[in-house]
């Protein structure tokens, strides 16, 4: 019962803020609603017993990446931006894509003999302490991808610095 309430609350929060992200004219407000959406997602992670991912989401996504976003928005946010047209006239394309997507999801659920729709998302037994297991997989099974990810971050860092430098 409680977990249902939690899920629907966070899901509604996530969807509403996501909609606001793409509809607000002001980029700073968009960023704030994106933070809200990310935090709501983090809440869903927590309700799925993914504590470590929850905190990664909060620290990295909300606390790190989004601060970067807000920072950049403040640097480039011109007063004129508010008076410009903020939307392309491509609603039609967007609608079609959304409709196709919705059709796919519905089809997927229908094809899978409704089990997806009734199957509870969690096995009964609770997982062992989440952080340890994540650590085990991260540093044992997925060691190589982990290192590659760190190289990716390094490359991104160098790239960002080079890109944002005053004179290239």
């Amino acid at each position, binding site marked *: 019962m409680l*977990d*249902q309430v939690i*899920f629907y609350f966070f899901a509604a929060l996530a*969807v509403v803020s*996501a*909609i606001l*992200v*793409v509809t607000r004219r002001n980029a700073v407000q968009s*960023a704030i609603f*994106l933070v809200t*959406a*990310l935090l709501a*997602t983090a809440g869903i*992670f927590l309700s799925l017993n*993914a504590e470590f*991912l929850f905190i*990664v*989401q909060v620290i990295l*996504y909300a606390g790190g*990446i989004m601060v*970067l*976003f807000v920072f*950049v*928005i403040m*640097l*480039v946010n011109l007063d004129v*931006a508010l008076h410009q047209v*903020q*939307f*392309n006239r*491509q609603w039609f394309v*967007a609608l079609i*894509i*959304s409709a196709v*997507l*919705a059709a*796919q*999801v519905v089809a997927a659920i229908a094809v899978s003999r409704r089990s*997806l*729709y009734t*199957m*509870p*998302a*969690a*096995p009964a037994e609770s*997982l062992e302490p*989440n952080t340890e*297991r*994540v650590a085990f*997989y991260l540093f044992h*099974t*997925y060691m190589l991808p982990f290192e590659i990810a760190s190289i*990716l*971050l390094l490359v*991104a*860092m160098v*790239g*960002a610095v080079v*890109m*944002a430098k005053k004179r290239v």
Partner: protein
Amino acid sequence: MVPIGHYIFLSAAMLAIGIVGIVTRRNVIIILMSVELILNAVNINLVAFSRLVGSVEGQIFAIFIITDAAAEAAVGLGIIIAFFRNRETVLADEMDILKW
């Protein structure tokens, strides 16, 4: 218990919203943010299914996606700053020359 289908719907909804954002907005920063939304939608699915099969490997994948999002945001915003410095705009449809 929340059925897995609801997670899929949530994820699909956020994916759709993200796509709408990418397609309809002119501001590159908001387009980038919409990309983040899409990545986030993927993460929801991964974590929900990881719970379903009782393994945390889906979460590992989600962590990699977050790492990727960080890299993408850093580079993307770097590009935006460089572009803004040169053209004083962040609108996607004004980014219409390949070289300057």
